[in-house]
């Protein structure tokens, strides 16, 4: 291991830590580590401070389980939002995506994952019980399932529907079909079937 012995111990530890991050391979980890130690001190210190601050100040919202600095989060605490409509998403980044659309005025519930029985991810690993508790507490009219249109997303939709429906709320899901710019010739059966089911009058 000549390369390893030539690398100072603190850099090795940094490379190892960066390599543990999602999407960072060994080469990228090395590049990032060497960039950080060669960069101006304030750059690395700023990163370290931002990291610590985020870890210290960010927590889960006690209502929607989104990441927030204040509990309840800004969306849950906003009196202009419709508290009777809950949009259920897989990840905090999905909240950002739906907010970007600018048309949704309800609140959210973040599951922090998706059902994936083959990978051992069951309902107990998601925040489904917290959603059921919110619905059971009353005042919820509609639950909008905004999971990804994948097999696991569908399984999650059906499971949530099964546990939430007994409380008498309306459970809906986002429309599915052809994305803009798609080529009909290459569309798969499922997408085409869903697009036909969800057709709209002009």
């Amino acid at each position: 291991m000549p390369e390893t012995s030539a690398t100072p111990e603190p850099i090795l530890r940094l490379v190892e830590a960066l390599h543990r991050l999602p999407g960072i391979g060994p080469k990228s980890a090395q590049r990032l580590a060497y960039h950080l130690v060669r960069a101006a001190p304030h750059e690395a210190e700023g990163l370290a401070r931002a990291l610590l601050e985020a870890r210290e100040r960010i927590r889960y919202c006690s209502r929607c389980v989104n990441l927030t600095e204040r509990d309840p989060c800004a969306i849950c605490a906003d009196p202009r939002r419709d508290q009777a409509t809950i949009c259920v998403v897989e990840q905090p980044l999905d909240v950002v995506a739906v907010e970007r659309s600018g048309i949704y005025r309800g609140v959210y519930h973040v599951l922090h994952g998706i059902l994936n029985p083959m990978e051992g991810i069951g309902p107990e690993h998601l925040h489904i019980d917290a959603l059921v508790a919110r619905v059971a507490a009353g005042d919820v009219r509609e639950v909008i399932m905004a999971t990804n249109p994948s097999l696991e997303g569908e399984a999650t939709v059906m499971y949530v529907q099964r546990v939430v429906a007994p409380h008498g709320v309306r459970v809906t899901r986002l429309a599915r079909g052809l994305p803009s710019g798609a080529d009909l010739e290459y569309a798969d059966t499922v997408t085409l079937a869903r697009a036909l089911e969800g057709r709209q009058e002009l």
Partner: protein
Amino acid sequence: MAGRPPRTIATEAIVLRRRPIGEADAVLTLLTLAEGRVDAVARGIRKPQAKLRGHLEPVTRSRLMLARGRSLDVVAQAETVDAYLSLKGDLDALAVALYCCELTELAAPAQTPQLELFHLLANLLSALDAGVRPASAARYFELHLLSAAGYELQVACCASCGSELAEAESLFSAAAGGILCPSCRAGATGRLLSVRAQKVLRYCGRSGLEEFCALRMPTETDAEVRAALGEAVRTALDAEPRAAKFLDQLGERP
């Protein structure tokens, strides 16, 4: 040039599993007609505009063109043969389909044609899609998967001495590979099976999938058969299927 392997293969396959890798790629575990269980990379499949995306969802039967890669094959083309749409709209059927896909992945050796297993899984998915009782379909699949994988359970005669079984409660031993007669059961571990449960296992072995799924049995017999086959599968495959837990959780819900 004569002995050079082909650079692409065209085959039908059932997508058993999809695991994300990198930014937008996925590694698929496929049960192919031509080569049995194969792992292949589907490039860019997680992008919303990916054309192959819908053809390569788990629990989908597709016609594929696989290009030989250095370590893993790469999916070059895909066209759906059966997407099993009704199955995917029923949570209980979908949970059984995922469980059976996982069992297939555990039982099928890599790069070895598994025709019997392929047709068994394809039949199961078609039957679930047609609306058979998911729990019975799972039991049928477990028993026949064991046969296809070379671990046929002895349920018609003693698994140890081959003698005929009397019509009485008997010991089912997963380690022994089936039901044991009173003289062979001394010292063996397992679970006692009622006469009715033994008959159900025998009927499961000789009937067709739809026929077996049409069979109505008391809840306690259902539980006995389920426990015995579950144990046999875990013992033969030496693994604890992860999807089994979700099936149990669905069963717990009213």
